[in-house]
């Protein structure tokens, strides 16, 4: 069992967790994730290891509350015991490419952070482009600034940084400064697809990290499978990082919606339950 050490809200519906799980902390490398199970009735969900401290035996997870399990996780208190297995997935291939552009959107900034760090450490010139709907949803800014040489921010309405999407900023960057040596894009599938579509004709190597639905995370179920070129790959063991130019994003997006109906039902039930509980405790007071 792993123990929750601390938890902190870092943006609306974004929580940072520090979890004590020494074996995982010791072995973690950038690009890897863990499978988390909150309790006996829970669902196993994959979460990227945003940071690790081998000495303390802890890992950091940064999680966006999007549905039942992530919302329930946000209610945990320090000291809670959860099940954590990992580190899973193939670590990021890190080398000195030259100039490395890290593009992150929404919750994708969390998995991007350790990769940006590793790329900087390997000697790359790291330029990060981070975007979100609003300023407060552009998470982990101090951490990403420390892991990058240059920063570009975007928000949908332009209230912070440039107006528009990260792709707009990436296009401008390429136009002004020429072709970078590698692009790493992590975020919603639609964003990774847009980035890949932009870099493909320019032949800029592009790495994306895919978030397909997983169960075991060990290559046993095939539920996380996606199409890469003509091949079927398992995201949990062959990935989660792949060549963005070869990924069938349309299929990925369709497969991500496999259980939407059930997910909505679970979330509705969860929210109702907690609203009732909140009302009850209000009445008691």
């Amino acid at each position, binding site marked *: 069992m*792993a123990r929750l050490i601390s938890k902190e809200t870092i943006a609306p519906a974004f929580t940072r967790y520090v979890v004590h799980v020494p*074996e*995982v902390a010791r*072995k973690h490398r950038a690009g890897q994730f863990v*499978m988390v*199970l909150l309790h006996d*009735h*829970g*669902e*196993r969900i994959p979460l990227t290891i945003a940071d690790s401290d081998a000495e303390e035996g802890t890992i950091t997870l940064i999680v966006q509350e999007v549905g*039942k*399990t992530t919302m329930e996780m946000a209610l945990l208190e320090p000291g809670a015991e959860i*099940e*954590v*297995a*990992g*580190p*899973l997935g193939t670590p990021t291939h890190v080398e000195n490419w030259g100039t490395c552009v890290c593009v992150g959107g929404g919750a994708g900034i969390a998995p991007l952070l350790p990769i940006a760090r590793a790329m900087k450490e390997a000697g790359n010139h790291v330029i990060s482009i981070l975007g979100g709907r609003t300023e407060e949803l552009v998470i982990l800014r101090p951490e990403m600034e420390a892991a990058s040489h240059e920063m570009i921010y975007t928000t949908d309405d332009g209230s912070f940084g440039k107006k528009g999407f990260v792709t707009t900023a990436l296009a401008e960057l390429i136009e002004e400064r020429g072709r970078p040596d590698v692009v790493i894009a992590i975020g919603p599938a639609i964003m990774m697809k847009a980035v890949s579509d932009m870099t493909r004709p320019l032949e800029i190597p592009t790495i994306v990290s895919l978030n397909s639905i997983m*169960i*075991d995370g*060990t*290559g*046993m*179920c*095939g*539920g996380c*499978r*996606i*199409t890469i070129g003509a091949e*079927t790959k398992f995201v949990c*063991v062959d990935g989660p990082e792949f060549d963005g130019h070869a990924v069938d994003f*349309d*299929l990925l997006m*369709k*497969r991500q*919606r*496999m*259980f939407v*109906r*059930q*997910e909505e*039902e*679970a979330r509705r*039930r969860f929210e109702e339950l907690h609203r009732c509980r909140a009302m009850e405790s209000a009445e008691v007071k």
Partner: protein
Amino acid sequence: MGRDLKPAERLKIPRHPMPAQDPVVRRSNFNEVALGYTPEMAMEEAERCLQCKKPQCVEGCPVGIDIPAFIEAVADGEFLKALEIIKQKNTLPAICGRVCPQEDQCEQVCVVAKKHQPVAIGRLERFVADIELAGGEVSMPEPARPSGFKVAIVGSGPAGLACAAELARMGHQVTIFEALHKPGGVLVYGIPEFRLPKDIVQYEIDNLKKMGVEVRCNFVVGKTASVKELMEEWGYDAVFIGTGAGLPYFMGIPGENFIGVYSANEFLTRVNLMKAFAFPEYDTPVALGNRVAVVGSGNVAMDCLRTALRLGSEHVVCLYRRTRAESPARLEELEHAEEEGVDFRWLTSPVEILGNDDGVVTGVRVIKMELGEPDSSGRRRPIPIEGSEYEIEVDTVVMAIGQGPNPLVTQTTEGLELNRWGNIVVDETTMMTSIPGVFAGGDIVTGAATVILAMGAGKTAAVGIDGYLRQTAGQPRATAAATA
């Protein structure tokens, strides 16, 4: 033996049918289908055994249980004695009595089977084992004096469990490392509750813990620590790899990644391990349509078909490219599936999965087959009949065409010799791999096989490990480190 009967009289007793839940009722619940013999039924069935001098049945049992001896004890009403006889060879009788393909093993060669129906050896085994589960006292063997050696077991399927039990009994300190959050392997994530209640598996695991075996879940060997690290950094003197055949195969036909296509592993894991049948009480969902096609006809396929029925699907079709006679499933499961209303399409193979613009399955295009000449496996090879293609409307397809070895451990263990299918090569007498001190057994060695073979391999390996530790390894690592 019980009553004094002549062989001819024994042969006249008909084989006692297994009491079972009514098909109409059971196809909508997950309770166990086969209910088990009563003591009277068991004693009467035991009378059918001829107590052969050279019992063929024992040869047919992969672990060589003294079948006539235990059956005699049953006939005499000495059920606990019967259990002790079984347990000398079989660590998990309540499980094997339920899931062994008896008709291909012990019961196939029972002499009674020549003219009549074989003695119901498996059912008797189960009956006896269930007495223990119901609280009957069994004397647990005294564990030997602690040897000081530490052994790591990778994987908690029947191979790992059996190996752990034997080693613990021999006095070694054993830790089981399991990747999932629950131990049991296929017994827990694959075989459904209605065939093997999970309480039984839990009971066996609790017994192991009582014997001092440590079980560490959420530990993915090859990721959390490698085999080499377990030996060099974690201080294990030997390692047993029992990681099974967990890698799902797909057919490679168009449409296989559509929404609504599951591997059998995914489908069964969602339902059994994660309890998706009780969604939303349990958080993991399973999306299943009213019309389901399962490809394959082994035990795994039967489990998927019958699970789909129980989840409420109205029309459940089995697609198999050979005939019923070649179906590798246990006969009992095949019959149960038929009784429950599965639509079997023999000599039928899918060529394409059809889907709509949203990538959701709408059907499967199949082709009819005929049997040609026998192939290398001795089975007649199915040949597609040209022009016989047709479509079946379905909204879910489950691929149950087999599993291969999961490469997580094998790829991260340098120097481990594998065969061309990726299975680990071992010395058959000791089960040692090409790496000294590293042993393997079960499906990871043989490819997908059976519970009893995996269990037997685990036991054989335990003997091999014990020999290795006592002779080759010399001192336990811990002591060696202390004196160094």
